[in-house]
Every structure is written in C-alpha cells, then in structure tokens.
C-alpha cells in the first residue's frame, strides 16, 4: 500500500517550490511512501482528547516597545544578494 501517488508527489513539490524531474518524482513516491507507511504506526495509539504539543515550554507572547533600533544597513543587506539594482533586490519577472 502506498499512501502517496506520483501526482500527489508532483503537487507537493510545487507547494514546496521544488522542481523535480519525472525520475525524481518516481523515486520520491517510493521513498515518501515508505516513510509515510512507517509513520502510520502512530495510528496504533488512541489520541482522542490528547492535547497536541506545539512547544515544550509554556511560551507566551513577548511584547516590547515599538522603538527603532540600529541593525544592518541597506548596503549590508544587499551584500549577499545574487542580483540587485538601485539599492533593491532584483528578481526575474513575475508576470510571463
């Protein structure tokens, strides 16, 4: 039994913004199928009324005053950018 089809794998790859070849899609279908199959053992446990743990500590909202602080400059922020123009990050066109 495989819990994930090749079409689903391609859909998930799109959601994850990953380009995969037909060959990779096939391999991932098998691999993810095996991992999901393994994960299905969790269904042996009855978890009705069990609260999900999202975080180990009792984290609460942390508030602070909205005051400007010094951080990196614009030039520094652009230092590692693959492409830039006029002090901004440059990307390929969004519309075809």
């Amino acid at each position: 039994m495989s819990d994930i089809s090749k079409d689903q794998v391609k859909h998930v790859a799109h959601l994850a913004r990953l380009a995969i070849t037909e060959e990779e899609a096939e391999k991932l279908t098998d691999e993810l199928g095996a991992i999901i199959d393994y994960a299905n053992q969790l269904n042996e446990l009855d978890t009705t009324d069990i609260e999900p743990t999202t975080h180990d500590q009792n984290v609460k909202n942390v508030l602070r005053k909205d005051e400007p602080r010094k951080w990196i400059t614009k030039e520094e922020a652009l230092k590692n950018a693959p492409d830039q123009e006029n002090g901004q990050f440059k990307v390929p066109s969004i519309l075809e």
Partner: protein
Amino acid sequence: MSLFDHSIKDLEQKLHNNEITVEDLVNTSYDRIKEVDDQVKAFLTLDEENARKQAKELDNTSTRDNKLFGMPVGIKDNIVTKGLRTTCGSQFLRNFEDPLYDATVVNKLDNEKAVNIGKLNMDEFAMGSSNENSSFQPTRNPWNTDYVPGGSSGGSAASVAAGEVLFSLGSDTGGSIRQPAAFCGVVGMKPTYGRVSRFGLVAFASSLDQIGPVTRNVEDNARVLEVISGHDEMDSTSADVEVPKYTEALTNDVKGLKIAVPKEYLSEGVASEVKESVMNALKVYESLGAEWEEVSLPHSKYAVASYYLLASSEASANLARFDGVRYGVRSENADNMVDMFKMSRSEGFGEEVKRRIMLGTFALSSGYYDAYYKKAQQVRTLIKQDFDKIFEQYDVVIGPTTPTPAFKIGEKINDLLTMYANDILTIPVNLAGVPGISVPCGFSENGLPIGLQIIGKHFDENTVYRTAHAFEQATDYHTKRPQLGGAQ
C-alpha cells in the same frame, strides 16, 4: 601529549603562571589541523588570520579573568558568524561569505575571550546522522577513518576528539550533539529547550533545536554551558530562568541518587556490547551509592515516527526562506520568478533536505494535516508525559546514547529508515524538551567509543552534570585518545 589533554581550568592556571601563551593554544589548534584534517575533514572554513591576531592581543592584555580566556573553539557551520562564511553544509549557501551578525552564543564566547578557530562540517541543514549528507565532504571518525563520526554535528565531535580544538559548539534537534559525541568518544550536552538562545542558529525545527557544547570532559562542558546559557531578548523562546553555576554542581556525590533505566533503551535493537557497557556503568553508580531501577517509557517506539513528521514539517516552513533572492545561490536557468525559486532550491539543496521538505510539506498540506502533523504532536504529548511520570520518582534517566557504535561510511546511506532508527534513543529527549548528555562509557570490540546518555528534568542540568561527572571521575574512558596520525 597535547595541550588539549588539559582541562580549561588547568590551561587557565598555566596561562596565569605564564607557562603557556594564548598563541601556544592557537598554534596547537592550527598545527593539529594541518597535521590531521586531511584525514578527518572536520573543518569547512578556517579563521586563521583573525584567530592569530586575537591571540596576540590577548597575550598582551593584563585582565585575564574571563571564563574562556584564550581557549580555542570550533563552531558548527549552522551558527552564524559575522564576516565568516556560514554554509550549513549546503551548496545553497556555499557563497554566503558574511552573515552580517554573530549568533548570541558567538557573542557570549567572544565576551569570555574564547578564540574562534573556524567553522565545522555538518550534515546539510543538520539533517542526518552520519555527516554523509554534508554537500562538501563527509567528516570521518578520528578513531577509525573508515567510520562515520555521527551527525549532524559530526565536525563538532570529530574536531574535539582529534585534538583540533579544545571545545566546540554543536546543535541538537534529534540527537545531533549526543550521537556524534558518543561515536567520537567525547562529552556532548543538549541543554533543556530554551536554556540557550537560538538567535543566529539557522533554524531546522524550531520547537526542538538547541545549541550545546562538545568537550573532552564534563567539567569543561559545564563551564562552556555556563557561558552560553541564559535568556536573550532576541529569542523569545529562550527561557527567562536563572542560570545556575553548573561547575559548582560537580560534587562527586551521587549517594542516594535515583536512576531510572528504561527497558525500551536496552531492548533487542541495542547491540550487546553497548548494553554491556551501560550495565557496567550502572555497577559503577551502585558502587558510588546511587540506586537504579528498571522503568518503562512505553511510547518510546513511536518517537522516531513522531519526530520525522514534526521536524520535517517545521523544516519545510523554516527552509522556505532559501529562495535565491536575498542570499545564497540563484539558478541561472529560470526566466520567471516562481521557476527561479524552484530551480534555485532544486539545484542548491541535497537529496535528504529535499526529501524532508517534501515530507513536511505533505504532512502540513490540506487533507493530511490532522492525520499526520496533529497526530504526531499528540504523540509528542504522550512521550512528554512518559518522562514527566518517571521524573516524579527519579532524578535521572540513564541508557545508551545510540543503539550501536559508529557504523561504516556508506553502510546505511541508502537505507533511510535504518538511518533514522539510529536516533531512537536521543529523539525522545528533544520531543520532551529535557536536557541530555553523552559521556564516554566504553569501547566496542573493534575499538570504537560507546556513549552513556544521562537525561534530567527540565532545567536540571546541574543533576545531569553531577551524575556524568561522578561517573567520569570513577572511570578513565574519557582519557583515551584516538591514534590518528600518530600519538599526540
């Protein structure tokens, strides 16, 4: 004998007495790196010029009361360092020459005058248990270079074991400090979740990640953790609780200590030589006046499945930031933005990283969220409750760190689930958020180290250190050194 066979405390004394200089310490690092790193391959980037300059400056200072004055440290390459390339072991960040700021832990080491020697190899984005997922090179185990050093902090453990640095920092999401520490015969601590600021640690799974020290002995480990612990306003998940002096907890007294030994940690999947070493360790504790009993952590067997769903889900969100816009590599083969995202990520990420992003994206996707992500979170609650219950009656939980000693390079890389199962004894600790340490407790028939894992209550690193230290003082496993490139 290397200077790094001494404890930080001893080296501090030697510096104080002018028997040695910081330059000697820094030379010890770079000489050893030149001698053995061709074999070990623990380092990705060296910071030699700065380190030597800093050594000279420190040797000329008169105030020397910092806790890590002049001590050479290596930093895992997922902890950002201003002006020093930080790659996370990924081709995606191969050109990330300047992260622009220092992680909080790096600032803290700097304030105590530790000297950064360089950046250490790791499985790409900390995903892996063998260092074979580093996209640059696999680090090798200093005890036998045909074997893996463990992962993902393989460079952190191997560099300390090989005597290339006095100590290092690693990160641990499912065992990534403790497992390589066990494989390399050094001391590795994963503190309580929230104990150490994660600001500047490139996030893998934010609800599980913790930074911790790798050292050659427990006392050094306690000292380093003292330096890097504490609340940080830059990480709102860092806990606002008092940081005790861990070094003062090392009393060598474990009389009456109550030890729980989960039967699931000594089950059939655990190698007999590992079981034997753990049983011998328990005898040592008995002789020191501690008591142990067998207990059950009934949900342990579900930890790996729960972990891979949760960690991968969090990773799929965290790694969305690698889009080829602001830093890292950009594919040159795309002519619109979405393709640019897709192709940059596909070209920049390795296989395991893509697989986990895919798994996480699937577990979080519409229609599967409840069945996988939420279910895994509920099972996490059950695993946490197992520990809560045991800690009502016992001070520490003890078992092996790993089911087997280090395995051969290439042995498990094609068998995903076997590779994942390797972390079965360390993962529950991250899911529960409690602290855990690995200390050397023996050697396998073929001479590879075995690690003893000691797990404590939330924010009770003191008891974990006291327990680990008492064992270390009663045994000599931690004094053994690998014979890499000749005796040192």
